[in-house]
């Protein structure tokens, strides 16, 4: 009889263990749902508060003291121009660094130093980049509180993201491709230009998009530089009617960006301005979601399609 009793005790033990298994799985799922629900709540809140304010005038009006007439024209134009400068610096620098570290770098202390630096910079709070820019770009180099200063700052901020993405996608290229190109007499740069860069371009693009999505939402470093919160004019146009048709006056112009405009409206007590903040926030969320979503989709496609 003791045998039967033992068996039922063991069964009870197994059942209790299995119960724990289930309880834990449910807890994990619930934790995941907390994240998902927060996201849904955040998105829905922005949409409900902001959608009534979203119309064409909101996009084409300057900020104003009267909340009903205020718009985000200077903010989105500023954001676009800053992003242009950021991409102009971050992409070539990041890709070049990635190529150097993967294809050229000898194994020595300088390379180690560069690698440790990149890892560390990824962990530096973004506001510290703002202080760097304030001390160095704004005052030491005399660039002022301009689009150029902001673009450079954000470029440095997203550089680690671009570098890591570049390195990962270069590392995925099989050695045989390089060897084949060298066997035909290609120099190291020819191998990079004709093989490494084209084959890793989709992966690099993914990293660049994620980096830009981060840069477009960054507020703290741009505030620290001293971007103005109330701007009722646009930077000088980049095109001119007479030769040489291109003008770069806009890079030195004062500016504001979307997140700063939203911050400005959020910190006002009037409810109508909060609505404006929600509308600006909704556009900002949509933009970052679209960019991140595109990057995730691209990565998914790359993983599926590449068969070396």
């Amino acid at each position, binding site marked *: 009889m003791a045998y039967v009793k033992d068996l039922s005790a063991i069964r009870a033990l197994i059942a209790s263990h299995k119960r724990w*298994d289930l309880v*834990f*799985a449910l*807890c*994990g*799922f619930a*934790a*995941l749902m907390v*994240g*998902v629900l*927060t*996201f849904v*709540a*955040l998105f829905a*809140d922005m949409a409900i*508060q902001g959608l009534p304010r979203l119309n064409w005038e909101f996009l084409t009006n300057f900020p104003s003291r009267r909340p009903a007439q205020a718009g985000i024209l200077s903010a989105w134009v500023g954001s676009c121009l800053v992003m242009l400068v950021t991409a102009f610096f971050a992409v070539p*620098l990041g890709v*070049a*660094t990635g190529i*150097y570290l993967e294809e050229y*770098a000898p194994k020595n202390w300088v390379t180690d130093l*560069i690698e440790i*630096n*990149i890892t*560390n*910079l990824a*962990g*530096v*709070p*973004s*506001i*510290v*980049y*703002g*202080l*760097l820019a*304030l*001390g*160095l770009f704004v005052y030491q180099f005399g660039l002022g509180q301009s689009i150029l200063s902001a673009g450079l700052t954000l470029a440095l901020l997203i550089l680690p993201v671009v*570098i890591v993405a570049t390195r990962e996608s270069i590392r995925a290229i099989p050695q045989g491709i390089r060897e084949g190109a060298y066997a035909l007499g290609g120099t*190291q*740069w020819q191998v990079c230009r004709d093989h490494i860069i084209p084959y890793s371009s989709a992966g690099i693009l993914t990293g660049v998009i*994620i980096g830009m999505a981060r840069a*477009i*939402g*960054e*507020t*703290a470093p741009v*505030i*620290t*530089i001293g971007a103005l919160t109330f701007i009722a004019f646009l930077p000088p146009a980049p095109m001119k009617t007479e030769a040489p048709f291109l003008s770069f006056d806009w890079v030195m112009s004062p500016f504001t960006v979307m997140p700063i405009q*939203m911050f400005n409206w*959020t910190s006002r007590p009037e409810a109508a301005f909060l609505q404006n903040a929600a509308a600006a*926030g909704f556009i*900002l*969320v949509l933009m*970052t*979601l679209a960019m*991140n*979503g595109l990057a995730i989709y691209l990565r998914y496609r790359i993983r599926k399609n590449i068969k070396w």
Partner: protein
Amino acid sequence: MAARLAHRRSRILREKAIELLLFLAAMVSVFTTIGIVYVLVKESVVFFQHVPLLDFLTDTQWTPLFDDAHFGIVVLLSGTLTSSLVALAIAIPLGTLIAIYLSEFAPFSVREVAKPFLELLGGVPTIIYGYFALLFVTPILQWFYPELPGFNLLSAGIVMGIMIVPYVASISEDAMRAVPMSLREGSYAMGATRFQTAVNVVVPAAFSGIASAYILGISRAVGETMILAVAAGMQPNLTFNPLEPAATITAFIVQVALGDLPHGSVGYQTIFAAGLTLMLFTLACNVAGHVLRKTFREAY
């Protein structure tokens, strides 16, 4: 023959030039670090000529812009620490649970959907989280606890915690998935359930990776700016009570940057001293993470 040699020489020269160019691009990151240290130290040195280091560390008031100026960094540190602790109290349990669930329990289809979703959550700009904390979470908290002020560390901390969850979860999950399958199989063969395997085999084996995920979470929380600037108020307040409003180091920098402080004034230099404190704190976190990874690394 001479033409070919010249061609060859120019080719070698071009190769060298390109390599140098790429090297210089790579050195930008080193220069960035040097630039950060240079700027922070240079302005802080001037600051500490005005304000003795002892006062900076022991004063219990932070009123740098008043006539009777006090510079007690403890006041700002208390806000930073309190909000970070609230955030970590949310992010570490949730992040770890999600990581274990996704790595050990979730069916393939759930993971395929959840991972990108978490990534999207991590990509939301922090100013949006700030708005959400101030105008969504605080009213909900006030519903439970009506005396809660409109600006408080609690709601900022909670939202900050949720912001950090994706980072903690995805790094911990990567670490757990790197644990070889044979370890799990051995555990299952002994009759362990999935829960027992996860807690007793996978988590210890992935400990160094999980610890570095926590460290990353801490340094994110300490350096987070906009959520606190929006939802926790900008009043310096020496408190460890999350129900009160308080300024953090980062919120103070934003507050000063929003005003018009003349370049070179003591008020201007305070933000660099505050930034240096922040930088040293996150550097300590990074070093601790590095040491943890080295010490507890399990190699298979």
